[in-house]
């Protein structure tokens, strides 16, 4: 082969691209190989139906690190995040709750269900932001080497960390407790109305195969709150032209720094000499060589696929196999002929521009989880919807709209086996639409096109093992020191010169770009390239 690279990154997901850009920024020659014909991985915009651009997988941007935006000059390269400030929760009796940036409006709206909750609500937000702020240094730096590898050491380390200096013991105890609690238990300590607890608890289960009453889901809640730590400067948002624009901006930045990106190149295996990685071979037999190989694919695909069990230590293989993927969510993207309606709302209401959460009460969510426990998709699933075309008309023809619906639960492992998703896909789509119809009467008749993604599709099309949206659950035992395996949480792997930079590495999934950045920085610091 003609060129030798300093580094080859497998996968042009947003993390792979970020890693490549940082390496190139430090003067390294980098090649990115992507198996699909387009870049972005789970951060993609696709015109599935003519004239309508769907953010096929991920749809809201909240965690993207500001430092990365600055370092890679992403605004210059097309990053444009429009805020998603409101949360709208319709209920079955035709009432609804709208929460947003106006504190007085929140108080008024929540007070219709509970005056006490209305009073507590701003205090809760403050407590979560405070916790989030303390966590910030953790998601912005590689995890330190711990002495003992148990989840409790994570919090020991936190306790010692400088960010917790000056914080009262009592405060710490009260708040760190949340780490092991369920989302519902944690929220119930704050609030009394299910109309608040229901919609708020779902952040604790997104992307996990856990119920809102499962221990540990309170932490996931916080993970989703971290997007708000910088207040007005980096709240939740939608990328202009769809989420794919985020990956595109990173790719443009990477290319401007000299990175070469090749699509339609599926890597079959990592080439090794002894215990060292030295290149990759594509399924078509082409070989590429480099001083270091980085994988942006998930840990299962990376270690059990690109490397192979036979080349790895048995213990490590066990750990990777134990690393829970078990996808639990699907996605339905709709092209709509007109704006959906909800009882009691006029079309000017900001509610339609909100994050629309269908999670009316605790039982509803528990029932949805029950189905999943027995290998069925939820007959009445939890849904998180957005209508980006209201803020960004460029994603749909004039007057038409796109609606993105994140759906849970859709277990990868159906009772009949994952391949049976081929037979159940449309029934799953029907369950979603039928449920939505109850909250937004008439939505069925507005649908011009329906695009259903099951966990099986997420695996087949986007290369996400078992359809897990975060390259492995963000549950407590799979974070920080344990991500993806004890002893290997610093992007380095048991294979020499082979690194992991995707969401399966610390600090985890979501459009955050932190694993990619931290991996590159760790490699550079270790003089690995």
């Amino acid at each position, binding site marked *: 082969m003609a060129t030798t690279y300093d580094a080859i990154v497998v996968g042009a997901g947003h993390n792979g691209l970020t890693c490549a850009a940082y390496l190139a920024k430090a003067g390294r020659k980098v090649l990115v190989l992507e198996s699909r014909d387009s870049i972005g991985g789970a951060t993609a915009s696709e015109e599935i139906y003519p004239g309508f651009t769907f953010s096929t997988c991920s749809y809201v941007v909240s965690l993207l690190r500001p430092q990365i935006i600055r370092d890679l000059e992403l605004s210059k390269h097309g990053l444009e995040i429009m805020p998603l400030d409101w949360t709208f929760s319709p209920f079955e009796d035709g009432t609804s709750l709208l929460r947003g940036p106006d504190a007085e409006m929140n108080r008024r709206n929540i007070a219709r269900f509970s005056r006490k909750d209305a009073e507590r609500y701003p205090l809760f937000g403050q407590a979560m932001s405070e916790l989030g702020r303390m966590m910030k240094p953790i998601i912005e730096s590689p995890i330190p080497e711990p002495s003992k590898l148990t989840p409790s050491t994570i919090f020991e380390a936190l306790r010692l960390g400088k960010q917790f200096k000056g914080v009262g013991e009592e405060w710490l105890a009260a708040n760190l407790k949340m780490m092991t609690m369920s989302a519902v238990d944690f929220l119930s300590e704050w609030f009394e109305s299910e109309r608040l607890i229901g919609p708020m608890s779902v952040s604790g289960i997104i992307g996990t195969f856990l119920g809102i009453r499962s221990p540990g889901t309170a932490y996931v809640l916080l993970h989703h709150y971290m997007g708000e730590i910088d*207040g007005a400067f980096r709240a939740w948002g939608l990328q202009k032209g769809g989420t794919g624009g985020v990956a595109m901006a990173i790719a443009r930045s990477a290319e401007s720094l000299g990175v070469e990106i090749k699509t339609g190149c599926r890597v079959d295996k990592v080439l090794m000499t002894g215990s060292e990685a030295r290149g990759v071979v594509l399924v078509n037999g082409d070989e590429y060589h480099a001083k270091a190989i980085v994988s942006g694919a998930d840990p299962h695909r990376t270690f059990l696929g690109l490397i192979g069990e036979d080349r790895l230590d048995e213990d490590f293989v066990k750990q990777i196999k134990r690393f829970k993927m078990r996808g639990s969510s699907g996605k339905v993207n709709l092209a709509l002929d007109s704006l959906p309606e909800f009882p009691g709302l006029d079309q000017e209401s900001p509610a339609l521009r909100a994050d629309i959460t269908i999670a009316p009460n605790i039982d509803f969510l528990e029932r949805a989880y029950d189905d999943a426990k027995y290998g069925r998709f939820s007959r009445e699933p939890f849904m998180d919807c957005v209508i980006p075309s209201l803020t960004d008309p460029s994603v749909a023809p004039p007057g038409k709209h796109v609606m993105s619906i994140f759906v849970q639960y859709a277990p990868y492992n159906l009772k009949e086996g994952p391949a049976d998703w081929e037979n159940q896909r449309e029934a799953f789509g029907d369950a979603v639409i039928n449920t939505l119809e109850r909250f937004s009467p008439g939505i069925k008749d507005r649908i011009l096109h329906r695009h259903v993604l099951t966990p099986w599709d997420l695996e087949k099309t986007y290369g996400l093992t078992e359809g897990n949206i975060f390259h492995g659950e963000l549950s407590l035992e799979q974070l920080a020191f344990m991500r993806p395996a004890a002893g290997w949480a610093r992007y380095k792997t048991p294979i020499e010169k082979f690194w992991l930079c995707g969401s399966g590495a610390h600090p985890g999934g979501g459009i955050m770009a932190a694993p990619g950045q931290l991996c590159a920085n760790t490699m550079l610091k270790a003089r690995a390239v």
Partner: protein
Amino acid sequence: MEGISIQRAARSADLNHFALAGDARKRYILTPMPIRSPFHDRVARYCTSFAWKDWAGYYAASHFGETHLPEYWAFRESCAITDITPLFKYEVKGKDAARLLSRMTVRGFEKLPVGRVAYTCWCDANGKVIDDGTVSRLGEAHFFITAAEPTLSWMSRLSRGFEVELLDVSERTGALSLQGPTSRDVLKQCTDANLDALKFFQTTSAKLDGAGVQISRTGYSGDLGYELWCNAEDALKVWDALMTVGRDYGIEPAGIEALDMVRIEAGFIMLGVDYYSAPHVTIDARRSSPYEIGLDHCVKLDRDSFMGQEALRAEAARGAEWKLVGVEADWLELERLYESYSLPPGLAPAACRDSVPLYLDGKFVGQVTSTVWSPLLKRYICLASVKAQYAALGTKLKLEHTALYERKTVTATVVERPFFEPERKRTP
């Protein structure tokens, strides 16, 4: 603030003038409050915030909903519609119209083609800026002028000996600004104008739902956008037509707060904020020449005599004392400053018009006059006046900033202005 009080006095004197002139009289006398623009009925319907401001004696919406941010995003992602009727509007007609404007303002108008708009400013005899605005040539001997301050008396004083007719059309003309990437699509759906042929800073007359309108491709947002002028009687019709069509293109009524954010991103100055009108202030330190407020490109020195020419010629030779520049505050430093108080960065997500000093080595070297955290650019940007020797791109200064009671500073670098200038602003 001596500037402000004198401006107010001037304004009410001016209203009295109109009160004598006709039907404004009833309104003014019966309601000693801001008056209503011809769009008010519609604007008020959307203004659920009741957040009104006084703009040149008119009610102007600060923001319409809970916050101004959706309006800001409409400017940048879809289409924002703003009632700009409070601008002062004049027509100059007659054989000497071009000559008068060339005499009054800092550039010549004899060669401006019909259908073109020019941005300009006008000065007093000492070359200090009185106001800035646009001049459209509607016909060989017919011009249309916008201004932030009443200008009729100034124009008529200068017009002695010129064969011109001056008309104050401020009250009888309704004005709307339609700005943003889908603004052209909206207009295309409801007018007969050939908008693909209408270039940046051109103007055309058109029919909009049967009403005659003048459309110019201008605006205060630094983006693709248009300004529409119509008879006050047609105002509601025009508004309704735009809003009806606009719905499919994400149109949003937008207020002054959102407008202020985008105009700073676009690097545009504002009278009374980034500079003061020369006759309205009492000391020279508050007055500015065009060279000092970034309007160098407007000034055409070598032509027939015009107001302030000599002073400006001398200043051009000598070099201006002050310069208007773009400044960007170092975000990381700002974050650290807040962090030192255990606070997240606490900037308001709105434009700020307070002047704040800039230092170099502890010495005062200028002040920022307009500041905004740009949600689009993710930058904390300011317009500033600095002593000319500190105006070079890349110059690092210290900007005063108060995170918690104490006055501190953060690094602020002189950067290019405009901060935001999309291609679509100019492209066909």
